[in-house]
């Protein structure tokens, strides 16, 4: 079976700035859930930006193959249509654009790029309402401008809704639990878990072990100084909780 995502000897830096990713390797097979843990400032978020093509970063070496194509050659919207979804740590607010209209535009932009027929408004509305119900997102929240005035929990539920609707192959969750209380965390995790399937993989980037109680990973990586320095099973997360990252930071240095 071909891997879903292959990162080979990746080097990246902030444009005109310091090096953040320094010789990283990672392979994710379809259906696997990988967690990336590491200390603050290790470059975990940068990894998610580099994968999704955020401007402001420069790839200085290596390659990323996603579903058989060279991911780094695609624009951010093409990567999205290819099935890469980034669940933002801090989702952006878009004033004046209703949540429903945004979802409609996003879904059909992707479908158009893939040569699929576009969803009609009634089809989309039905689907969104169904998914919304499982996440406690009501009609009022769908009418409001995207993320404007949403609480931290509402924003994360909204991200999860987008993810469920767009049905990506790879979900990259960047600190998905930040700003969440336990109840909201459960709702979001349930949404994410409902998406787990043999074809779909997850890359869960987190600082704390807490999230991994809810989204249980198959593989846990320790990320320090721009690369993966240690890999283990889900029990590694618990170990890290007890011992901290200090030993790995030394290892990386």
């Amino acid at each position: 079976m071909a891997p879903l995502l292959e990162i080979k000897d990746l080097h990246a830096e902030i444009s005109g700035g310091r090096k953040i990713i320094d010789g990283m390797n990672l392979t994710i097979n379809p259906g696997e859930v990988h967690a990336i843990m590491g200390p603050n400032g290790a470059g975990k978020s940068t990894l998610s930006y580099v994968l999704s093509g955020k401007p402001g970063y420069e790839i200085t070496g290596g390659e990323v193959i996603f579903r058989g194509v060279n991911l780094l050659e695609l624009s951010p919207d093409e990567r999205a249509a290819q099935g890469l979804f980034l669940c933002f740590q801090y989702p952006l607010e878009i004033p004046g654009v209703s949540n429903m209209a945004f979802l409609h535009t996003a879904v059909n932009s992707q479908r158009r790029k893939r040569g699929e027929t576009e969803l009609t408004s009634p089809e989309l509305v039905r689907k969104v309402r169904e998914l919304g119900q499982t996440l406690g997102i009501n009609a009022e929240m769908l009418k409001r401008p995207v993320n404007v005035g949403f609480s931290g929990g509402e924003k994360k539920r909204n991200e999860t809704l987008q993810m469920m609707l767009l049905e990506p192959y790879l979900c990259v969750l960047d600190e998905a639990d930040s700003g969440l209380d336990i109840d909201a965390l459960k709702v979001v995790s349930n949404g994410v878990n409902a998406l787990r399937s043999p074809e779909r993989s997850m890359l869960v980037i987190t600082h704390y072990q807490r999230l991994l109680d809810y989204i249980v990973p198959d593989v846990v990586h320790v990320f320090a100084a721009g690369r993966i320095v240690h890999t283990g099973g889900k029990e590694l997360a618990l170990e890290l909780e007890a011992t901290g990252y200090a030993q790995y930071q030394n290892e990386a240095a």
Partner: protein
Amino acid sequence: MAAVQDTVEQVRSIDVDQYKYGFETLIESEKAPKGLSEEVIRYISAKKEEPEWMLQWRLDAYARWLTMQEPEWARVDYPTIDYQDLYYYSQPKQFKAPKSLDEVDPEILKTYAKLGIPLREQEILAGVEIPEGERPRIAVDAVFDSVSVATTFKEELKAAGVIFMPISEALREHPDLVKQYLGSVVPPTDNYFATLNQAVFSDGSFVYIPPGVRCPMELSTYFRINEKNTGQFERTLIIADKGSYVSYLEGCTAPMRDENQLHAAVVELVVLDDAEIKYSTVQNWYPGDAEGKGGIYNFVTKRGDCRGKNSKISWTQVETGSAITWKYPSCVLRGEGSSGEFYSIAISNGRQQVDSGTKMIHLGKNTTSRIISKGISAGRSNNTYRGLVSAHRKAAGARNFTNCDSLLIGDNCGAHTVPYIEAKNPTAQFEHEATTSKISEDMLFYCMQRGLTQEDAVALVVNGFVRDVLQQLPMEFAVEAQKLISISLEGSVG
């Protein structure tokens, strides 16, 4: 790779040469001699078979204009206009007022077809039957160069007592009405361009809504400038008599030109007791090429007089075209309890220069006004909001709310807000809010991560930014305006 950097680059290299409505219709036309003189004015007046008082009115304006100075206070920069190097009148040759659409020159109808925008209007112009109730009916008074070519729905409007016709025709059929109101809102002394208009105006629309009548349909007019080197000088006069209501739509596109074309229109609105006029404009004239060459000079005077008690005027404008826009649709709030509104979207790209805003002049007691202005600057353009809110000393209880938001796309454009606020009555309450922001790269990335192209992301963000104003437009017009916003940004991104 830096996607947003690309956006900026593309905005810089905006290819406005792709202006979608730049084509020329080959119709023989009849012109007045080049230049401006008493003879030319007499020629125009004679062509129009105008009464003597009208000719005199024009000549008075011309004499005054000769003593006036072109205003220089606006934040716009353009080469000196040679007023003797322009044609002041042109009309399609062999023109006889058409009795029906069959008589309209097929070339002209083709022009409308090519325009693509006035879809429903074009259907109407082409005489296509539209099933009852399927879409709102809109009466069109189409202005092709200087002459109204076709007027539709005349009969039905007539039944309601509404007068909607070219102003030249109104001069013949309703001379008293025209004489009573023409120039009563924008006087001959008003400003350089308005006075020029008064001297040479060729045609325009005249609307009169009788007391208590709610105009049974929206009135619409499309202006185009077609003849090479022709200044176009429309004059529009709308009167809403006591207790009446009318919604008037004005849309504009023009073919591409090398020379700059001067456009100095005057619009006068008169609203009597308890009446209301809603005036909506979508302006999409040729903005000039990437270097700023060509493009329309749009120096427009639009003013409404809320003459009666509890009268109301609402201006809504979507301005995306023209090389230079100099335009301040205003309200004189004379009647007690009258109210004025100004909703504006002004988009500038390439090397466009916009200096636009409004004046809300509170003269009567308990008058209210509301200003919502959204300026979007891209490319190397400059976009200025200039507005005046004033309360006369007798304007007790005057209220105003102003909100001016500016959005910048890229690093080479400018957004400016110049509000003038004068309150001479201690009970007046004026509020002013203003923001300036740059289109957020993070916001664009967020949209793109969800699958939107860069271009769609910009359009989405911008449409969100202008939503408050779009909502003020009549439904069908709003859809067109939204498309137009995307089109004008299409040139800027990708």
